[in-house]
């Protein structure tokens, strides 16, 4: 079912946690549906200097969360918002067919965090 690479990511996820003084926060999903991803970002000079996540969900949700935070860290805001589910899935050695939808979930949450940051900038 799951690729070996995804399972590794799932068992050893990176960037788990909360950024207390985050510049942006995104959250998607809801507990009744059984999956919630929260992503925190810290931004300096348009670059994501720190990205952390907390995820309640299946192994794919956790692995994609971990992967997306790693891919985002060090990128500019513009680069990070372009991360696609396909890229994430590929980096994880593919997702089972029934789980492809779920790989959109983490990049979407990251985009929400970026939007949150940008909204705060404007105000």
């Amino acid at each position: 079912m799951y690729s070996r690479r995804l399972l590794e990511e799932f068992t050893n996820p990176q960037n788990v946690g909360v950024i207390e003084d985050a510049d942006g926060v995104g959250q998607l999903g809801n507990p009744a549906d059984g999956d919630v991803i929260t992503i925190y970002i810290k931004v300096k000079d348009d670059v994501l200097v720190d990205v952390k996540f907390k995820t309640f969900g299946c192994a794919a949700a956790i692995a994609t969360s971990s992967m997306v935070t790693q891919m985002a860290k060090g990128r500019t805001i513009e680069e990070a918002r372009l991360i696609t589910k396909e890229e994430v899935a590929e980096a994880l050695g593919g997702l089972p067919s029934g789980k492809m939808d779920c790989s959109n979930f983490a990049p979407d949450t990251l985009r929400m965090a970026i939007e949150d940051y940008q909204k705060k900038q404007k105000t």
Partner: protein
Amino acid sequence: MKRIYLDHSATTHVDARVLDVMLPYFSEKFGNASSLHSFGLEAAEALSSSREQIAAALGAEPQEIIFTSGGTESDNMAIKGAAYMCSSRGRHIITSIIEHPAVLRTCEQLEREGFEVTYVPVDNEGILNMQLLEDSIREDTILISIMHANNEIGTIQPIKEISELIEGRRIVLHTDAVQSVGKIRVDVNELGVHMLSISSHKLHGPKGVGALYLRSGVNILPLVQGGGHERGLRPGTENIPGIVGFAKAMTIVREQLEEDSRHMQHLRDSMICNIRSRIPYARLNGHEEKRLPNNVNMSFRHVEGESLLMLLDMKGVAVSTGSACSSKSQKASHVLTAIDPGVDYIHGSLRFTLGRENTMEEIDIAVDHLEEAVMKLRQMSPFEEE
């Protein structure tokens, strides 16, 4: 890595004694039980003694046992067979909302064909609401199908009470005993049922074989047409090695049920107790006492079942969850939804189903891994305080 199998309600390994008796029937005594020659006679004798063994284990008569390909087919055959047979008398069927899909989907199919089905709810511990069952009985009720024990949460339903309730009425009573046989005593006369489904692979027999107990005098229509096998009720060349293995598995159940049951219950109770004392916010799903001796179904707050299952699998511990994670959002099983453990718990259920060969040591190791996994996932959970 030593693997620990705690998913015996999904399937079981074939007992060594069972495989032993099966082996000669593959390549030596391989005849077709319908053939008149000596190869056929060997097969016919194996078939008839297997039938006797299975009947004996259920308190039934040999001619009341019809061999099928498994639990799903037995359920379909019982429910549709009786419904079609009795449809001139009435078209109302009663079942419960926590039945196996083999029963629920079959009832839904009958609804599409013009039957009416009442799905009786259960209480928060998964026990059938007997009052609502009684209230739903009508003049045109022809069939009641209620599972003996639930496959997810292990609750045992009051089948005997139902059979007493309908005594004297022309209602056929079917029970899906796929999960109960081999774990608790199942005697068709004590239960008072007309039909009872069994599946061999759930009780250390081979896959691909099952049976329907059909009480003498109760008539059903066959779902499959062909040669005259199984009194015309279920044609097709009989799976002799499978049937012989199934019969041996039933005989073993008959001989050592009490001992096995006690052993599994001991493991079960200490597992529940350990989990409760070591893992905070762990909730038992189902009924404390009216449950199968081998079923531990617990929900862990703020963690998701499939993740938990995967983490345990990485440690060699095989379990199941009621939260099948398939597409975008996790669907909690219909059984968990029916007993509603609450939003914080419903997606975090794990089912541990023990087998007679599990040891206390295995249970202890499993609980260690479980504790670690729950902690790990809670650290990742957005609902948990840092």
